[in-house]
């Protein structure tokens, strides 16, 4: 025992005396303080959101702290690999092991003492995290609103339950690796693989099926806790400690056991021997080479004289030789193979994830494949660069061959450049691996449109340059920081910092080393507007990199002087006129390219940090909110001419807005909002008016009429606006692009103060000195109801447009085409609507292929990009089925055409304008729907149906600007689409879709930033009006029948069609639904629409006894609870007297599930038993198996049936 103690004490003291221990502590402490205070709102320009707590979860709540501590400790993997590895490997590194191993010490004491000493030190270092987080939370300049009570337990709890067991497991792993291999490199590789693998496998674990297994296989416990708290409400997150139960407990126990297992294994393998166990990655003693015998005589060998060269040509030869040497030592190495192998493994695992939506995949088109594979591999590449840059810089010194090299006449810049080239070539190999993996994964899915050119362009044209820039800075850091470990940490710190720089307010790409404005590839537009800026930014950063290279070669360690004083002296000596000249040139390039970029981003375009953007919004509210509600004219007609210039990315908008005074009083001034991206060439009213305010920054103008504008009067506003895009901004300007232009009526002038321009988020409002505001007016607010929620300056308008574009493109606006002609290389289209529309329209232009069809007398057209034919037929089909169902149930389709238009994937949504549906490239055109797979949701069909439904639900009836209005459009469209889907695919297939919707709703609840509301009052909350809406409406249909629901909807539509001010609200719809519901079921209206109601339904046990031949009596024990929740998620129980599905399932010969019984029963609260008679062997039984009721824990709705013996 005393041996153990003495080894242990020695180890702890050893670390206590090393500076690096305190450096590690300091780094984690500082990082924790910084991150905590940033999340707590200490920095005005920082907007660090974390973990989706929404605005109401306190940043120091147990749940939030758990996430923060867990994330910080993840980076501790590196420290554990270093520390515990060092404890195990130190003796081999220093060569002192023969001394230790010949002492009379037993294995347990030696290994145990070392291991425990390392663990204790590691625990000390990790203690910095909860301490730092706590310290950060206590700092005075945090936003007090974001903090809850400070409980020591919320800081310590994650440390004890999460960090320490994780440390034990990883500690055992790394201790063992280093001990058995007697080298540190497996720890590097292992640490990197573990960290990256963990981060990547997070994606895999998003698959719902594997939840329990996923919770177990996550060695760091994060997934288990995520699963445990998946549906926690805001209130729960703020108060509850994470309980160590269920999957979380098993996970902890499992991985602690694994840690013990690893240690035990290594204990067994290890022995106090000179040569370690032979392993592929261990130190190998090479077979000795026999020496020639000593020559008896001294022979004189004539050494020929060789000409020597020290010129440029020699340098090239030397560079070439050094590069080959460096490249070989990186690549011909079992570790490199291991890293690449691990990378390939993750590539293989992530390849199936290419392009999934609703569980259905897209065709593995090349840009998608590249994005997924390159994205998941990029971490590997970064790690590789970080580690191998160190290994390369230190190679000669590690081998002790440095003195041989340093005394040769090779120029000092040659080793640096050769290592840079070697590292870059290595990265090139990795990129080739990605390409290969991509090709294989595409072929494996039967897709052969490889687009090799795109592979090469993206990987070697774009990404390689990015990585080479990183190689330069990595090598620079290792050169300057003459310490391998510190270098590694600094590089990783730099990478992380660059990632988060934007959130610290340093958003301009001129600061972030190596960055550019990004690029998104679209089949429609290729790299479009992104390539030019990419080139300039890379030229800029490339010049900076050249300067870095010069600095590296000045400070390159040659010889033995590593100390600062001598390195400066030597650097001065190395400074030659040539180098000075080259540096001056490089600096000149930096200034030139940087200046050009600055000119583009800040002069030709606007650059604003997020904070400045917020301040602008704040000023809008401060200066102009006083004018809210002032009477304004109403737009009644729009006649617009739009000229689109795709190549120049410019657009001109000219036209006339006709407006009427629909108020009771005279209007003497008009406030006009313009888009600040447009230049105003002319803006004139049809009556004389003076411009009294022209706020150019906010594009807000106030005009005063010379004569008052009387009620019933009409006038016009003639405008001439141009949108000119010059150069490039710090982030890309889209909208008008060379192929796939998509701009909307947001560019047009609008009248009156618009509250949408205000700051929304409560925390942000507080930061700028505002009170929190209501998102939307109350559901019956008369002012709210006087406007629709689409636009507050118009009701239903007449619309016509003349759109022009280049000759080879088609331009689209809402309306029926009246005329089309070509003039001067441009093509003109005149459109006109025959019925009034909402003041919401768009203009698109692209080089499309067109597929046409008809349904009755409605023209259907899909405008798609050549090559994207995959789902066009499906969409057309969707349109037809939708038109059929909707017009049968809710009245005629009011237009004569339906047009679907593909636009580039810069945004991924579909949107419904009058008879015009722009549809993103990304969400349906390349979907790969497997008609035979019951879990594959045909989402092109579904999205099409949803958008067509909006032609009724939004373009025939539109809600007022009040709570709940989105029910009338979004929820109704969801329901409509569900019905069409059900007709097409059958009821069975709806199950997986509804499960998806239910999960999304429940998760959305826990991310609520303000307050949750009942469906009928929701304030444009997507997770409610889409997800909960789907579930609720489907359940309603199940209860009262499809015919009844549809009739109610039809009656409502008849009542409110084209209703102008006052606009309808959701309560009106509810009345119709209530009328359609029998009295006995009246409670469901209240549950589903008017409150937030949840169940906790549990099937406890199910037993069955065979009665007669093949007939069984099933006894199902249930435990049911019902809750009403308030807006923060606080729940109170209410009594159950409800009608719910009870089901019994069997199995057919193929093992497929069959429904033996499905019917509604009246149930009450608490425990109860239900008896059911079925024909056929019961396998499972339960309550609400189709998830029609909102249930927090739906996995316990159904249980397996235990079948007893022969019955009574």
């Amino acid at each position, binding site marked *: 025992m005393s041996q153990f103690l003495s080894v242990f004490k020695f180890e702890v003291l050893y670390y206590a005396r090393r500076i690096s221990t305190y450096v590690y502590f300091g780094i984690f402490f500082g990082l924790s303080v910084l991150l905590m205070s940033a999340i707590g709102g200490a920095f005005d320009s920082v907007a660090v959101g974390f973990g989706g707590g929404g605005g109401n979860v306190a940043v120091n709540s147990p749940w939030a702290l758990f996430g923060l501590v867990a994330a910080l400790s993840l980076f501790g993997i590196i420290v554990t690999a270093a520390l515990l590895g060092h404890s195990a490997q130190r003796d081999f590194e220093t060569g002192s092991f023969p001394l230790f191993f010949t002492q009379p010490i037993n294995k347990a004491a030696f290994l145990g003492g070392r291991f425990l000493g390392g663990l204790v030190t590691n625990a000390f270092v990790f203690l910095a995290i909860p301490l730092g987080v706590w310290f950060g939370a206590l700092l005075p300049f945090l936003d007090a609103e974001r903090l809850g009570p400070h409980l020591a337990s919320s800081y310590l709890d994650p440390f004890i339950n999460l960090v320490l067991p994780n440390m034990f497991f990883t500690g055992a792993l790394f201790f063992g690796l280093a001990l058995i291999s007697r080298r540190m490199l497996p720890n590097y590789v292992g640490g990197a693989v573990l960290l990256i693998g963990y981060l990547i496998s997070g994606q895999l674990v998003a698959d719902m099926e594997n939840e329990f297994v996923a919770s177990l296989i996550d060695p760091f416990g994060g997934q288990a806790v995520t699963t445990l708290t998946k549906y926690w409400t805001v209130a729960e997150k703020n108060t509850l400690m994470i309980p160590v139960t269920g999957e979380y407990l098993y996970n902890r126990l499992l991985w602690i056991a694994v840690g013990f297992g690893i240690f035990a294994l290594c204990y067994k393998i290890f022995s106090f021997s000179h040569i370690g166990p032979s392993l592929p990655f261990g130190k190998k003693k090479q077979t000795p080479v026999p020496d020639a015998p000593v020559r008896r005589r001294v022979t004189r060998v004539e050494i*020929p004289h060789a000409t*020597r060269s020290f010129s440029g040509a020699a340098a090239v030869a030397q560079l070439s030789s050094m590069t080959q040497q460096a490249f070989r030592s990186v690549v011909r190495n079992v570790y490199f193979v291991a890293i690449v192998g691990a990378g390939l493994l993750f590539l293989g695992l992530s390849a199936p994830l290419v392009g999934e939506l609703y569980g259905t995949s897209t065709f593995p088109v090349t840009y998608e494949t590249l994005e997924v594979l390159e994205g998941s591999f990029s971490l590997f590449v970064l790690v590789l660069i970080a580690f191998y840059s160190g290994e390369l810089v230190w190679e000669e010194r590690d081998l002790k061959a440095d*003195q041989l090299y340093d005394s040769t006449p090779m120029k000092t810049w040659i080793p640096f450049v050769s290592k840079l080239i070697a590292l870059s070539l290595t990265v090139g190999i990795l990129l080739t691996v990605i390409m290969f993996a991509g090709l294989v994964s595409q072929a494996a899915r039967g897709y052969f449109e490889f687009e090799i050119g795109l592979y090469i362009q993206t990987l070697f044209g774009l990404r390689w340059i990015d990585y080479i820039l990183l190689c330069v800075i990595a090598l620079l850091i290792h050169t300057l920081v003459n310490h391998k470990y510190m270098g590694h940490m600094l590089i990783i710190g730099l990478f992380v910092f660059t990632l988060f720089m934007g959130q610290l307010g340093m958003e301009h790409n001129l600061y972030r080393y190596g960055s550019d404005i990004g690029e998104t590839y679209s089949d429609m537009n290729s790299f479009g507007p992104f390539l030019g800026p990419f080139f300039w930014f890379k030229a800029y950063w490339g010049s900076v990199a050249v300067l870095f290279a010069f600095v590296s070669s000045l400070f390159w360690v040659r010889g033995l*002087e590593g100390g600062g004083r001598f390195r400066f002296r030597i650097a001065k000596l190395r400074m030659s006129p040539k180098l000075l000249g080259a540096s001056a040139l490089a600096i000149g390039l930096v200034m030139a390219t940087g200046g050009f970029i600055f000119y583009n981003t800040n002069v030709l375009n606007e650059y604003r940090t997020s904070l400045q953007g917020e301040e602008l919004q704040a000023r809008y509210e401060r200066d102009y909110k006083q004018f809210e509600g002032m009477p304004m004219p109403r737009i009644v007609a729009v006649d617009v001419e739009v000229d689109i210039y795709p190549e120049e990315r410019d657009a001109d908008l000219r036209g006339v807005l006709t407006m009427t005074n629909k108020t009771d009083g005279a209007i003497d001034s008009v406030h006009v909002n313009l888009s600040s991206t447009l230049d105003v060439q002319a803006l004139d009213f049809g009556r004389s008016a003076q411009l009294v305010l022209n706020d150019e920054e906010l594009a807000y103008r106030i005009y005063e009429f010379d004569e008052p504008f009387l009620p019933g009067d009409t006038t016009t506003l003639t405008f001439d606006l141009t949108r000119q895009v010059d150069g490039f901004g710090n982030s890309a300007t889209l909208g008008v692009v060379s192929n796939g232009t998509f701009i909307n009526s947001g560019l047009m002038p609008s009248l009156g103060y618009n509250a949408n321009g205000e700051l929304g988020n409560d925390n942000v409002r507080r930061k700028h000195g505002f009170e929190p505001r209501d998102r939307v007016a109350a559901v019956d607010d008369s002012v709210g109801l006087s406007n629709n929620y689409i636009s507050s300056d118009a009701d239903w308008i007449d619309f016509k447009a003349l759109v022009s574009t280049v000759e080879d493109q088609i331009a689209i606006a809402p309306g029926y085409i009246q005329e089309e002609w070509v003039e001067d290389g441009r093509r003109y289209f005149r459109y006109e609507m025959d019925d009034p529309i909402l003041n919401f329209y768009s203009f698109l232009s692209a080089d499309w292929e067109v597929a046409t069809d008809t349904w009755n007398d409605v023209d259907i057209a899909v405008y798609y990009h050549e090559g994207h034919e995959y789902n066009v037929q499906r969409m057309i089909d969707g349109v037809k089925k939708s038109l059929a169902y909707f017009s049968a149930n809710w009245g005629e389709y009011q237009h004569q055409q339906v047009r679907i238009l593909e636009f580039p994937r810069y945004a991924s949504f579909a949107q419904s304008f009058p008879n015009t549906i722009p549809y993103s490239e990304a969400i349906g055109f390349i979907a790969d729907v497997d008609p035979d797979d019951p879990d594959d949701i045909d989402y092109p069909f579904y999205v099409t149906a949803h958008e067509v439904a909006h032609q009724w639900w939004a373009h025939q009836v539109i809600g007022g600007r009040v709570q709940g209005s989105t029910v009338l459009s979004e929820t109704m469209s969801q329901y409509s689409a569900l019905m069409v889907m059900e007709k097409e695919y059958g009821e069975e297939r709806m199950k997986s879709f509804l499960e998806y919707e239910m999960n999304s709703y429940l998760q959305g609840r826990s991310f609520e930033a303000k307050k949750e509301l009942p469906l009928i009052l929701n304030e444009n909350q997507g997770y409610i009006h889409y997800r909960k809406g789907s579930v609720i409406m489907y359940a309603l249909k199940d209860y009262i029948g499809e015919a009844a629901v549809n009739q109610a909807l039809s009656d409502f539509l008849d009542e409110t069609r084209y209703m102008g001010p006052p606009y309808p609200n959701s309560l009106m719809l509810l009345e119709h639904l209530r009328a359609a519901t029998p009295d006995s079921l009246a409670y469901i209206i209240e549950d589903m629409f008017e409150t937030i109601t949840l169940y906790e339904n549990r099937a406890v046990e199910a037993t069955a006894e065979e009665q007669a031949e093949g007939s069984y009596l099933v006894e199902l024990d249930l435990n049911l609870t019902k809750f009403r929740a308030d807006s923060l998620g606080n729940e109170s129980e209410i009594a159950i007297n409800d009608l719910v599905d009870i089901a019994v399932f069997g199995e057919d010969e193929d093992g497929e599930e069959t429904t033996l019984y499905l019917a509604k029963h009246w149930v009450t609260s608490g425990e109860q038993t239900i008896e059911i008679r079925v024909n056929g062997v019961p396998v499972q039984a339960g309550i609400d198996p189709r998830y029609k009721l909102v249930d927090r824990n739906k996995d316990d709705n159904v249980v397996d049936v235990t079948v007893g013996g022969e019955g009574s």
Partner: protein
Amino acid sequence: MELRIEGLSKTYPNGVRALDNVTLEVPQGMFGLLGPNGAGKSTLMRTLATLQEPDTGSAHLGDIDILTEKDRLRETLGYLPQEFGLYPKVRAVDLLDHFAILKGITNKKERKQVVDALLEQTNLTDARKRKLGGFSGGMRQRFGIAVALLGDPKLIIVDEPTAGLDPEERVRFLNLLSELGENSVVILSTHIVDDVSELCSRMAVISRGQILRKGDPAEAINDLRGKIWKKSIAKDEIDAYSDRLNVISTRLQAGSRVIHVQADNQPDDSFASVEPDLEDVYFTTMLGAGRSVDGEEAVQMVDSAS
């Protein structure tokens, strides 16, 4: 070409004076730098090999200023460090070829000739296609000298080359070294006196950063002729003799103790005159300059006329 070292001094950050005002003139030929471990030999060697910086002083090889014209010196430098490693998985001939390029031998044919010749001279021809990881200590040393000899260096620095070699390897190595030095300055730094006595025509003795003696080994030995006496004594008599006489060394010979004493005249009949060797020179220098195991005394430079 001559190597001139003037007033070189270096003190390490922990206070250790590695070099203390070292001044030497080294002509062409073999020069031996003799001194105990920690005397500053390696520091001096590394400074001359452009790998370390002194605090003060200068060094010139011909007209090349070693401290400020490192690139020029390296063009004509051959350095065999005291400790060095090699790439274990690379073949000897390939690594030697690689270094030849680095030394500026860019012509492929010439390079091959030089490489083959050096491998032959160092008796490594048979092993040239084997991986360096399997080379014995002696083979690695010979490889190192082959690297150092690439490109006809005018300054060859060999730091403790025979430490750790078995007697056969040592003989072989010294044979090699003996061929050098006709046209270059060769500095052999060692604590093994026999190496210097066998090879060098000039030497210096260094201890604690200071040059204690410099000159011609033969003359230094000559100076001691007739002044060294030996006697076999018993173990417990050593202290008695040390008090009385200037005992410069004690060694064991076949189990009995033999002392060497420095005296102008025969101390007494029991002492026999003995032909002095370089070891005696070394010990007398170390002791005669006032060095003892404990206590520091003033340094007296012993400079034989040369």
